[in-house]
């Protein structure tokens, strides 16, 4: 399927960790992407300016990496659009109700030794693994 890429994975992870430390140190904020972005929605709006800055800078950072020579990503082929919609709804609803995603509960929450975040991380990792198993090995999709 995909190749194990230990060097770029670890380097990327260290940068993400450094990003979270920087945001806490300079702004006093937790780098949880769902929390940062969903509070830009009209219904949940709080402290919008820095959230826009972070979001746009994140997109610029991704774009900067992709503009480096030799970086080339392949699009996934044949994934059903309806599943993307269902998955998007579940991810949005779940991270809003559970107050965090892979970055907020995973990267930052575990770094703070938060019991809630550890619990949430174990739960979403488990349901993600179970879902992947069901979809790929039982339901036989892709």
């Amino acid at each position, binding site marked *: 399927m995909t190749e194990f890429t230990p060097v770029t994975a670890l380097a990327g992870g260290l940068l993400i960790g450094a990003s979270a430390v920087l945001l806490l140190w300079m702004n006093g904020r937790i780098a949880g992407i769902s929390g940062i972005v969903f509070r830009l929605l009209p*219904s949940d709006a709080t402290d919008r300016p820095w959230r826009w800055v972070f*979001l746009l800078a994140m997109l610029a950072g991704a774009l900067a990496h992709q503009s480096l020579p030799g970086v080339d990503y392949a699009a996934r082929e044949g994934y059903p659009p309806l599943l993307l919609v269902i998955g998007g709804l579940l*991810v949005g609803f779940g991270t*809003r*109700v559970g*107050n965090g995603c892979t970055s907020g509960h*995973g990267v930052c929450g575990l770094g703070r030794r938060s019991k*809630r975040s550890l619990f*949430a991380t174990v739960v979403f990792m488990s349901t*993600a693994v179970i879902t992947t198993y069901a979809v790929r090995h039982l339901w036989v999709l892709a």
Partner: protein
Amino acid sequence: MTRLELIGATASGLLFGFGLSLSQMVEPQKVQAFLDLAGDWDPSLALVMGGAVVVTALLFPWVLRRPASLSGASFSLPTRQDIDAPLVLGAATFGIGWGLTGYCPGPALSALTLGFWEPWVFVPAMLLGAWAGGGYARRGTASAAQLADV
């Protein structure tokens, strides 16, 4: 937003997006290859997460020993310790959507820059789901505290 807060949000966002792209987490097939333990397993995501957590675990305590952030703003941290039903329901639901698609919020948003159509379908659906989740979280009386989390 002070000048330091502007610098902090910019630098932090840049690093985050660069890191997500460098580690290929913007590729849902890469994420699914990690979640698929019974398939041709790709452990990369464990190193991404592990690398990030090592940095936060080592340096967050140092940051939080300071009286306030560099910009002067006080630390905005979740205070809750209890494990309640919305946390379990939310995390479980998130995991199902993540496993189904290979996208979580940061990578999905960052993948908008790749020029593929998938994230442009996923992200609007995710925002709609978050809007609905906000309504759900605000129902009844227990909502105010939940707004203050991550």
